[in-house]
């Protein structure tokens, strides 16, 4: 068999898997809706700032008398209304998708990678290594995320990379635990034992034989970490500890709260609030349907 045909086979196999996954998602109506929201969010994250009709911070919208439109309900000039200082809520919503997206993406991936590696190493080696790493996760479980993050951000100037770093530091424990238990069940299977017996080193066994079998769970938890990151970023921003140089959906909520307009200016509150809840919920919905593929037991239980 030629190399070419082998790779074609691999690709078609992958394509088949993807189709299969997509099929499961599309069959689950909720998950399908979630997927649409995610695609929309990613598009906004990439194109949002470019699509915004106004500069979200610098442009002041003005009415006919040239007066700034302060806290105006949706109208022809601004179809999502304006903020207390006459900024376009629609533009802020579009531009705010990017920082939210970036934090979600990098926070999620970072959390996934760190958690995956810790879980893999811990589960594979067991014993003392496991002991040390799991005590470390216990420690991060014991520390409450928000207060700790606030403490850190009081001393360091908040910026998107720093917030991502803080998120990863506190969130990796979740995938680590799950991956560890998965690894522990995989590592005792025959093919792993025979790999070891035929002379494969620890690194090779761990990454080549064990890792692929827990990768799916890793991806799933990475996806979950995306929505955790977005939720935590919003909370931090709402408390005034977000990156002050960008407008994320979280900072939008903080601004409307600080201005005292929270109870009146629904057009300013709803877009970021709906944006955040829609994306976090969607990730969970899609994740839930994927769990059915990864862990068929769930499916059976559901069918009974």
């Amino acid at each position, binding site marked *: 068999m030629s190399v070419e045909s082998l790779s074609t086979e691999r690709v078609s196999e992958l394509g088949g898997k993807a189709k299969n996954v997509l099929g499961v998602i599309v069959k689950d109506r909720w998950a399908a809706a979630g997927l649409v929201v995610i695609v929309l969010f990613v598009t906004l994250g990439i194109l949002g700032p470019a699509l915004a009709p106004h500069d979200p*911070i610098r442009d*002041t919208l003005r009415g006919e008398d040239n*007066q700034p439109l302060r*806290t105006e309900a949706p109208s022809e000039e601004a179809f999502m209304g304006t903020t*207390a*200082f006459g900024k376009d809520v629609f533009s802020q919503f579009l531009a705010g998708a990017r920082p939210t997206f970036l934090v979600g993406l990098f926070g999620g991936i970072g959390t996934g990678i760190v958690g995956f590696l810790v879980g893999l190493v811990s589960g594979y080696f067991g014993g003392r290594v496991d002991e040390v790493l799991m005590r470390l996760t216990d420690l991060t479980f014991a520390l409450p995320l928000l207060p700790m993050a606030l403490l850190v951000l009081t001393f360091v100037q908040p910026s998107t990379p720093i917030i991502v770093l803080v998120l990863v530091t506190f969130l990796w424990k979740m995938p680590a635990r799950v991956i560890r238990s998965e690894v522990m069940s995989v590592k005792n299977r025959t093919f792993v034992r025979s790999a070891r017996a035929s002379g494969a080193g620890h690194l090779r066994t761990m990454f080549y034989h064990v890792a692929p079998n827990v990768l799916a769970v890793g991806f799933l938890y990475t996806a979950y970490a995306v929505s955790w990151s977005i939720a935590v970023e919003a909370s931090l921003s709402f408390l005034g500890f977000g990156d*002050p140089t960008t407008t994320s959906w979280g900072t939008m909520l903080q601004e409307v709260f*600080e*201005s*005292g307009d929270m109870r009146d200016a629904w057009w300013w509150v709803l877009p970021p609030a709906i944006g955040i809840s829609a994306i976090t919920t969607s990730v969970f919905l899609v994740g839930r349907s994927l769990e059915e593929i990864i862990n068929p037991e769930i499916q059976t239980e559901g069918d009974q």
Partner: protein
Amino acid sequence: MAGIAGCSGMFGGGGNGSGEADEDAESVETQFWEDWPVETKNNDNVPVDYTATEGQTLDPVTINYSSEEEPWMEEHAVMIESSLMELGIPTEMDDVPLNRLYDEYWPADTGHIVPISMNTHGPDPQRGLDPNAFLLRMHPEDSGNYMNYYDEEVRDLIDEESAEVEDQDARRETVHELQEIMSEDVFCYSINFPDVIQAANTANWSGYVPTPGNGTNRDSFIWTHVNLQPQGDDTTWVKGVTTEMNGLNLPWSAGGEAAKRMTVIYDGLYDASPQLEVVPALATDHEIVDDTTIEMDLRETTWHDGEDFTPEDVKFSVELFQEYDAPDMAVFTDPIDSVEVVEEGLGGRVRFNLDGPDASFMTQRVVMSAIIPKHKWEDVDDPANHNPEEPVGTGPFQFASWDQGSRMEVEKFEDHWMWDEDEREEILGEYFEPGEGVDGIVWSNVGNTDALLGALEGGDIDAVDSILTNEQADELAQNDGIDKQVSENFAPLDVHINHIVPVWRDKVIRKAVAHSINKQGFTDDVLDGNATVTPGNNLISPLVEDWYYEPDDYEYDPELGREMLEKAGYTWDDEDMLVWPEGDAWDAFMDRLEDGHATREELEQDDFS
């Protein structure tokens, strides 16, 4: 003048992108241009890294602010950003938390660590009483000189007016001259004096006093607190606040809010009236014996625990504040060399011997005094870290209870002179409201602005101590029984520029930018007109009537600003960003930097446009 180094080809190349760097281009870095009387201000310790390079595009100028400080502070920073952009000066926004702004960005030892920083100033009465509170910021020996401004002429003038005790007219003339220079030399950019907008319940309470800088019910003045008259059944006034108090030690209190709330418990020697006049408090009269000696007659009154108030208490307080460095009392005690008791017993008379003549002693410093009881404090080992469980003062209210983080309560002290209607009427004038006054005050901590506004609407609190935006106040005023209250301000909103950075060292740029700031536009658009726009660049408000001088204004005309830069040899690159002068124009630029305060005309420089 020392240390005019820094011109070298080797360290050039600071520009960013006006094309290929010229090998022979000269450059100049940020530096202290004089030998400062402050040891830490020297060229081994330059706080900012900013270089101007011949023929290169300007590096971005950092604009520092705290969006936490005022709801509209970011809007203001954006306004300044666009002013600089109009002239082609690249910028970088730097929004930091408020505590970092004060702790890190304005170190007293080196001055600002960025080219531009901005803020509003606190409502302390001394800033509205005497011009020195702001003029001293131009003095090289003053720790408030964050802008690193150094001009020998200005220093001498400040020394002169500060020492002019006898002849008020002569002092006034010097103070006017200083305001003229402050504005002409562009010491800073003074934008406006934002109105103090508040809201309070006026259905159940009458007698709010709109004090300048503090509005009707912030705590730096006590006039509303002693003038309020209950109209309903409730006789305890409840005020919602968002900042908690750290302790009950007024002279050594860690936080400003604690000190301010406790001014209802402790009296000073003098007080400031709502018209910003110095009025008697614990001292009833004074006599200026000579330039450095002042005697005061004291009031016959008692402490809240019934003990007599005597001159010994005054002497003890001043000596304790000095011995243990009470930060909140420094304004008052700094010039005092010693205190003597001239006449003992209830009331009595004290003499202050000053280190030197101090024109602001009786116009400002005595108002910042608080007198503490000797019989309560003399056995305290470590006054700076003492937290009196039950503070005893002579003020109109006595302490009732305090729960850190949630509330403080005080009760009316019946024997205080302010409950006497004649005394009060004399001080308050048109704002005077006859009556018995309130039985007590409660400061109740409410988490945040939104909750505060809700609590006021719901009737849980009677007033909010925060400054509100015009919109918030209008919204509240739609409720029955709640009124919007607007007071004028003597504390300016200003833009600090760091005079050691090459950008600001060139007077041409300083003046060009002054023409590029649309103060009126900002005031109308963002503050809805609720501010007094400053003519020129004066930090002294027209409310400081005795000392105010109106300088010439800088007309808003960015084109004029560009013209000024062009004549000085500046050019613009393809992206319309400003480029440092070259050749002869660079030499002229360096001459202006060396002087720092001279115009091109004064230096007889050519027109390079």
